[in-house]
């Protein structure tokens, strides 16, 4: 079981968290003008890279706050955590 460093609470057990998929996918404003394909891309498609991936997590059994993390999908290692609204850090 991994430790995940909640940016608000510090390192906590993985079981306290829930996963929220890819980060930095903003809800498209003015989506009425999007084509069906563009809207479908937003609703149904996400990246699936091998390597560092910016993801949303929520500390659901703790402070209940959402934050972002960069996780290496090949090793599960969490390379960085940052608060909602902060820019994605550069991770080597």
């Amino acid at each position, binding site marked *: *079981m*991994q*430790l995940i460093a909640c940016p608000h609470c510090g390192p906590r057990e*993985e079981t306290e968290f829930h996963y*929220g998929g890819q980060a930095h996918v*903003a*809800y498209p404003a003015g*989506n*009425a003008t*999007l084509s*069906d394909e563009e*809207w*479908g891309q*937003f*609703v*149904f498609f996400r990246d699936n890279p091998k390597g560092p991936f910016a993801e*949303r997590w*929520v500390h*659901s059994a703790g402070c*209940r*706050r*959402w934050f972002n993390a960069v996780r290496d999908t090949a090793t*599960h290692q969490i390379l960085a955590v940052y608060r*909602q*609204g902060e820019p994605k850090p550069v991770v080597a």
Partner: protein
Amino acid sequence: MTSSFRLPTGGRVDRSTELAFTFNGEALTGHRGDTLASALLANGVHQVATSVRLGRPRGIVAAGAEDPSALVQVEEPFPEPMLTATTVELHDGLVARGLPGQGRLADEPDPARYDAVHAHCDVLVVGAGPAGLTAALTAARAGARVVLVDEQREAGGSLLGAPERLDGAPALDWVAAAVDELTAHRDVRVLQRTTAFGHYDDGFVLALEKRTDHLGAQAPANRARQRVWRIRAGHVVVATGAHERPIVFAGNDRPGIMLAGAARTYLNRYAVLPGSEVVVFTSDDAAYAAAVEIADAGGHVAAVIEARAKAPAHWAEECARRGIEVRTGHVVTGTSGTDRVTRAHVAMLADGVVGPRTGIACDTLLVSGGWNPTVHLYSQARGRLRYDAALGAFVPGEEIDRASVAGSATGEFTLAGALRSGHDAARRALASAGLSTEGLPAEPELPVTDPEPPAQPTRVLWSVPDPDPDAGHGDQRFVDLQRDATVGDILRATGAGMRSVEHVKRYTTIGTAHDQGKTSGVIASGIVAEALGVDVGELGTTTFRPPYTPVAFAALAGRDRGVLHDPVRVTAVHDWHVMHGAEFENVGQWKRPWYYPQDGEDLETAVLRECAAARESVAMMDGSTLGKIDVQGPDAAELLDRLYTNLMSSLKVGSVRYGVMCGLDGMVIDDGTVIRVADDRFLVTTTTGNAAKILDWMEEWVQTEWPELRVHLASVTEQWATIPLVGPRSRDVLAAVAPDLDVSNDAFPFMTWRDTGVAGVPARVCRISFSGELAYEVNVPAWDALAVWEAIFAAGRQWGITPYGTETMHVLRAEKGYPIIGQETDGTVTPQDLGMAWVVSKKKDDFVGKRSFSRPENLRPDRKQLVGLLPVDGDVLLPEGGQVVEVDALSQPPVPMLGHVTSSYRSAALGRTFALALVRSGRERVGQTLYVPLEDELVPVTVTDSVLFDKEGSRRDG
């Protein structure tokens, strides 16, 4: 079996205690400090079990968890199957028997308690042998918080089984001093009888502590029998020692054939002579100590069969001094014996060719092919292994984060080396855990070891060729004794084209038994490599997975059994329901009254009665489990506008609106009522099962997409009790309990709410209906719920007020075509599919799900739509989940499916059965006859509108 093989002195057993036990029906005795295996050997019992497939007699091979064959069933004090005799501590009254491969689970509940403990430390050391103790001492002296776990009853590790000396005194003196020092540290915890069985990410280790197993029937009832330690360590030092590796030869499974190191343990730790007539077969130096010690203890060692061309000089001399013949360049090719080995067949082995054999009589044959570092815990945490050709073993490769390996687990087999590596590992652990090593002396203060004789390299010998392969008895060179799997089985696997040890493992089952291949895994890799002509290092081993040793499910479950398995939630009125005979339904974790049978009623009769009361007079239910979310803040209305399909900002204070929420894909995820408490405050209700999910959903949007919205959310599900009061007489009942409230239709119209006193309690009464009847929903603080419930019940008595449960609620709402989210919907249903286009706002620019409604898929005319179904025979009750088809006779499959029945009930109001269903192009089909196939018939049904009762809504205002 009267002969005793117990030596008069020595060992770690307490001769002043005599423990009576029964094995295979025979009454025997042993001492405190024995394992079942050592006590059996002391009584001369070697055969313990019979093998699972071939029924061959099997004995004791090892002295610890790696034993592949001595499986027993404990019968008393509590039945437990599949334990190894080598790990069961002897206690008074133990009753056990050998197993023919498989055991028997207890058919009675386990009365013992199990528990879990969390621990945090800087350094966790696994194994209290010389390396582990040194590591723990070093870390403790530097001021670290240390946990030391060790699977044995006492610390010492390999030192318990060998007459080693440290600082010129018995090594166990040093062990005792080390343990004393450790336990004196405030921040050090030493756990004996505790096996670390799983090593996971970020220094997380699970360990099983056996607290009372060794006490038998004397175990105190108030103490957990076993507990699982969940240890989070800054750094883990794996000092788990090594397992001796056998050499495989024909007939290597006979009782009396034992690992040489195990024999030393029985001799030195338990003071048991493993046999009287001993042959040692080795390709490694360590086995000589067994020969010499057994000879010194009074056993007769007939010969040492040395597979190497030359014996190590020091040990050759020691053997010569004791008159022990050493036959170099020889191997054991086979054995004789029925219940126990009686003869070792010995022959020269040169260039893979076995020479003529001679026999040596023996009752015990000790084997050593070298040692395998116990790398399990290191490998579980994704530490890479490296093959060491000189050792014939896999050793830890480069270190991983938060874990180090020390002692013989690294492949360092000398005592001095183990002590040094324990110290070094502790220093690395301290650095990794970010702790200072300043308090430590520059040069480690390690105990002085006796000089060790120069070592001669091990000869890596996986198996000895079968000298007589055509004897017709099948291959008897057992690689995995527990699985009865042989060299021949491996060769069949490679012959069939398998190239991976993982495949060979699954084909032969080698390494899949209780011992997980601790003695057989590396040998199997070696034999596969030889067969394929590849390098063992390239081939690798099978994956080491937790648990290291078997762990009972009871221990893993801990206290989470029975009523504690999952929390049970009950409403504030629960006890009343119980007293009034309610049957309960589980809805999530909630217990909800399902129906209230009277005078032996069944579900159907009770529900017809409850429904009739609601439609004809008055009825009440406990709706407290509804999810309730308090939404507060200046932007509360804006948030709800964005999340509900309909407009909420236009709702007036004092009014109620029904709302639907959809996902981004436009599918319905929840529904409920919204009441506006104030300009900046709403109370939102959700379905019982979705309360937490919808709060999470709202939080997610607020936090991640719209952080600019000034709004706060809180669950108030448990704070409010909710009592729906339903039926034409509900207004009369309400008037009786709420004297200050003007209950007239004009003053208190449909879809409004009023704060008032109900039965003297401040209450919020909503005029909403989930049945189509005149109805109210009385909300009061949960604390007052029972009093208010009882007051309403008393006030309604003159009209025959009837408590009803979830089943009646379902029937009443289904008669009106009101969907239940999760029953009529399954994540693929839009509001339009439900016939609820009216709940989708056309005024709002956007809300979650809106854009998806215009996706072509969601505009198809043949989408499944909610309709009613009336079985042509009004007595036939359709099963929920039943398929709907168009054909009146089932042709060859595939039969096109039009949809399925989502709800089906018997209706008192309609005087017949009815159903709701999702049917392709359902609304176009109103009036059509379709069919629902049952087991042996096709039931004709008429498609109707989903609203089956009081379509005009004439009953709503009473």
